[in-house]
């Protein structure tokens, strides 16, 4: 199966339009404005689906659907928002648990019907869905099982986030289509073959990135003594304007580098503020200056960012038998979106959508987590994947002794 940029763009737009339709239904029912915050298509390992939901309780509805696309979909929100949502539909509904549940089912039914109908209309076919099933679960359990496919460990997940304006309520739509019908639908929606990426190469690249994340995690462990595990690694595809929203509004400390070669782009290594302090102190025991990071802390983080960046991209270069240069790391300390905005603007000069490569790592020993985000140039990533020899995917490390013999 080949996935081309055009069909990914089209399917992303479709998911966005579906979410917009769901949003309009929500506004009509409740009178409260809502906006589609993020829509993205992500390719990730089946076991990692829903990692971003960990530690939270959710309420919502689940459907299965069949037709030109098959699979499962859910619309969920944080459990603590149930009363707000139920009361917005019928004042006082939250006082009766049965009524509140019914309200949730109905809002889910109407929103998701709009979402699914939009897909069917675009694909000029029909998609039937089951009646809504009320769900109340924690973390990734709220999501349906990822579709099984013997030869594919990785799955496509369509995710949309809808924000209720003026209320701290967010709706999350997850759509997990079966592989084969999705592949067929993508192929049929393609006009050109020129920019197609074979899906096995995209999956291989994702695996290489997982290795790169593990290398970066090993480097952290070696420099700090903190045992660090690579967590989720995924490739997402989203409109450029949605990229900064994905990083969120939390404050981060970290580094940004521009990398050149095939592919070129930008790479960020970001720590939340507590993690930044912890990791810097593990590298270099120095006293904090009040609540502020000292120059020594910043120097330590800068060098760690440099080493993690290399750990991450060296594998790409070695497998592709090329070199990927990067600039010296630039220290950043700002709100996530503000860090990403200028980088997305740069990348957006040449493309409307972006592949975003996201990796996370963490440790249980102290409060520490780090994120790596890469924004490659779309055309160059495609060229790199074109050159990728899947058989060489495990050749991520160079043998320095052999080269310097």
């Amino acid at each position, binding site marked *: 199966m080949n996935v081309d940029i055009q069909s990914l763009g089209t399917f992303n737009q479709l998911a966005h339009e579906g979410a917009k339709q769901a949003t309009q239904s929500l506004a009509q029912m409740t009178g409260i404005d809502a906006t589609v915050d993020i829509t993205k298509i992500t390719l990730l390992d089946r076991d990692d689906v829903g990692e971003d939901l960990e530690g939270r309780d959710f309420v919502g509805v689940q459907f299965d659907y069949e037709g030109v696309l098959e699979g499962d979909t859910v619309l969920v929100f944080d459990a603590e928002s149930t009363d707000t949502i139920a009361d917005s539909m019928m004042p006082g509904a939250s006082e009766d648990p049965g009524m509140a549940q019914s309200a949730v089912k109905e809002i889910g039914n109407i929103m998701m019907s709009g979402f699914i109908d939009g897909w069917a209309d675009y694909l000029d076919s029909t998609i039937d869905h089951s009646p809504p099933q009320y769900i109340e679960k924690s973390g990734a359990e709220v999501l349906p099982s990822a579709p099984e496919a013997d030869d594919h460990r990785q799955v496509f997940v369509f995710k949309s986030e809808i924000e209720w304006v003026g209320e701290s309520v967010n709706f999350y739509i997850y759509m997990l289509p079966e592989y084969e019908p999705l592949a067929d639908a993508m192929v049929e929606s393609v006009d050109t073959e020129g920019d197609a990426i074979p899906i096995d190469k995209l999956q291989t690249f994702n695996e290489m990135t997982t290795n790169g994340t593990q290398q970066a995690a090993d480097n952290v462990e070696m420099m700090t003594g903190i045992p660090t595990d690579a967590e989720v690694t995924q490739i997402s595809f989203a409109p450029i304007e949605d990229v900064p929203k994905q990083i969120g509004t939390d404050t981060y400390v970290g580094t940004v580098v521009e990398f050149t070669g095939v592919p070129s782009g930008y790479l960020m290594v970001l720590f939340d503020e507590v993690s930044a302090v912890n990791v810097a102190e593990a590298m270099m025991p120095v006293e904090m200056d009040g609540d502020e990071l000292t120059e020594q802390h910043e120097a330590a983080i800068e060098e760690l960012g440099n080493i993690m960046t290399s750990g991450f991209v060296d594998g790409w270069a070695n497998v592709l038998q090329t070199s*990927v240069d*990067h600039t010296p790391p630039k220290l950043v300390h700002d709100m996530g979106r503000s860090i990403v905005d200028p980088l997305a603007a740069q990348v957006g000069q040449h493309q409307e959508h972006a592949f975003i490569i996201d990796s996370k790592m963490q440790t249980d020993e102290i409060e520490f987590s780090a994120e790596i985000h890469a924004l490659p140039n779309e055309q160059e990533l495609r060229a790199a994947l074109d050159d990728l020899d899947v058989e060489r995917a495990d050749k991520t490390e160079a043998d320095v002794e052999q080269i*310097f013999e």
Partner: protein
Amino acid sequence: MPDVLIADDSEFMRNLLREILEEDHTIVGEVENGVEAVEVYKEQTPDLVMMDIVMPIRDGIEATSEIKSSNPSANVIMCTSVGQEEKMKEAVKAGADGYITKPFQKPSVMEAIEDVVPS
């Protein structure tokens, strides 16, 4: 004790290397880019240069190439986070005598130095 020049744009890494080396070596200079590395090398002609690759103004491979052109018997060990085969080959072509990838521990640094500048 052998004289060593440290070229790395990271203050953290210069400090770390100094701590590892100063017991058995004389640190004759610490510089932050490839241009300064070449200048200080020509002034001091140390026994060994520990050279980072990714540095502003001029990278470590270009600086190594110039140092080796001016003095083919100069000893340069690349000391870098870059673990790419193509970069290692470029370093060999520039004349580098050794290559250590960050992060490193003291034994691997001492072993690389011993290979290049035997005590």
